[in-house]
């Protein structure tokens, strides 16, 4: 039922100025399931989204749409659509909502009307004649979702769709995305820096650090039993109202500079359990049982 619709194998992106933004990322998106990509800013998660949307050319690695190499960009974007982070920048301030929604319908020769699209994202039809600046952040993000649905895609790439919205309306948008996923049988890639929302919204979660995926598995396991030291640090740092303020101080250290990554494990400079080996050789993926894996020498004996 959840057949693979989009697959990335060994995706890599190096920018001219030497920044190695994404390094050998492989992941699979299945219909009707949400896959989360969690990481700090600069971890390369947004670049992965742009690579999958083919808005940015990959340095190496391949993308398979329903198992084959994708054809012309216009056919490709009929099945893969993207939603952007900043609701204030993702809609052209000069066009009314009507224009923004009818364009994709015309390009992909869909029969739906803009009114139906707005209805699908729980917005009244009279929004069509409004300009983006007359809408709130949440409403704009819903229009962006409606625009993505216009092409009737099978994959939806959501790059931090709610991180710039007010907290109280974030869940409204996330729940909308979940209903659409179930109703339209979409495969959703959910990119976020907030691991708690990944646990709430996604079926599987991948954690990225310094351009590489360091841990993966179903969301509940990864968030409740984190294996990779970085995932543990991420969860320990997340705000937790139940914990008294004076808890163990977390290690100091700066996020990695992608310009000159250390050889070996990129997290080694900040890792409390780093061994000499971590400094020199890149850790392999070690399987920890039913799909849960971590790229870390601590689990060396169970190399996948």
């Amino acid at each position: 039922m959840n057949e693979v619709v989009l697959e990335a194998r060994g995706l890599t992106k190096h920018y001219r100025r030497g920044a190695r933004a994404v390094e050998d990322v492989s992941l699979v998106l299945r219909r009707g399931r949400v896959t989360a990509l969690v990481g700090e800013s600069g971890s390369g998660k947004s670049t992965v989204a742009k690579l999958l949307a083919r808005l940015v050319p990959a340095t190496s690695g391949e993308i398979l749409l329903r198992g084959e190499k994708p054809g012309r960009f216009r056919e490709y974007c009929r099945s893969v659509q993207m939603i952007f982070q900043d609701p204030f920048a993702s809609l052209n301030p000069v066009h009314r909502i009507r224009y923004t929604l009818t364009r994709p319908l015309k390009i992909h020769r869909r029969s739906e009307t803009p009114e139906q699209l707005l209805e699908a994202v729980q917005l009244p039809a009279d929004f069509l004649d409004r300009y983006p600046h007359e809408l709130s952040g949440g409403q704009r993000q819903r229009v962006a979702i409606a625009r993505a649905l216009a092409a009737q895609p099978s994959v939806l790439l959501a790059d931090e769709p709610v991180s710039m919205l007010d907290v109280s309306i974030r869940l409204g948008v996330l729940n909308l995305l979940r209903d659409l996923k179930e109703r339209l049988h979409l495969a959703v890639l959910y990119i976020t820096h907030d691991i708690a929302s990944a646990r709430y919204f996604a079926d599987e979660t991948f954690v990225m650090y310094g351009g590489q995926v360091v841990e993966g598995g179903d969301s509940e396991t990864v968030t409740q039993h984190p294996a990779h030291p970085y995932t543990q640090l991420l969860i320990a740092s997340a705000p937790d109202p139940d914990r008294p303020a004076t808890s163990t101080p977390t290690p100091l250290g700066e996020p990695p500079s992608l310009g000159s990554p250390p050889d070996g494990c990129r997290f080694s400079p900040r890792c409390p359990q780093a061994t000499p080996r971590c400094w020199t050789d890149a850790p392999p993926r070690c399987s920890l049982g039913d799909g849960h894996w971590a790229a870390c020498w601590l689990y060396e004996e169970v190399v996948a």
Partner: protein
Amino acid sequence: MSVLEVRGLSVDYGTLRAVHDVDLTLERGEVLGLAGESGSGKSTLAYAMTRLLPPPGVIRSGTVRYKGFDLLSLAPEQLRTLRWNDIAIVFQGAMNALNPVASVATQLLDVFRAHRPSMPRAARLARCRELLHLVGISPDRLDSYPHQLSGGMRQRVMIAMALALEPEIVIMDEPTTALDVVMQRQILEQMMELRAALGFSVVFITHDISLLVEFSDRIAIMYSGRVVEEAPAQSLYRAARHPYATGLLGSFPALRGPRRPLRGIPGSPPDLRHVPSGCPFHPRCASAMDVCTARTPVLAPVDQHRSVACWLEHENRGAT
């Protein structure tokens, strides 16, 4: 014993009323959390206290009592000497809060040049090195420029600058929103250690209420320019009374414990251009009553430590 008392403060931005006669008290050595979303007026309130609101902001009413005198009626020169000496601010956008064309040293020394004219230069430089060390930055960064620092380092320089004159009160306006969660925790923990050591009071402004529950002693929640509930952090977290407060607390997916479906709050955040009648939250409130659309509730004490502005709490809710 309170160190700062705000009474009946109202602020206009052009024709829009951004803050509606707010009462707030900051106790000595306390961390007061100020939570609210866009349009809640939390930053406007903080900047109005030291008359730092950019045009077209105008303070319409209220007093801000600090050490016996009203900050709002001080002469410009008096207020200038009081700024940073007594009340310092850690700004949000560290990217733009530091002067891009001046070195870290210059911007730190500026504070001493303005407030400690008699202090010899050597002592000033030593103090700058000490401050950087205090916030975990190596002193040789003194002659770097802001564009040569990472986001985390820039925010720590802001904190060092704020603590330069050992102020009584430090206002933190979304200090870590622009940073990653790991850096955020390091900086906030460092801030709390400094507070414990130096004993200043903190006004901590943020939209992330789960952070406030963890780091502040008391929390005031603002909505559409008014304080809707004020209570000790843990008791607010355990049992919030105002519907907006409960809704807000319920909008944070839990990282630990059982996974329960959440709804957040329907509708959209307040738009200052057309504020609803009566209680501004009534359009989004599940338990809104007739009186809520008619009259605006007043913030009144509900018990010894908590006050709420909601008709559900007050006995005369029957009177329409």
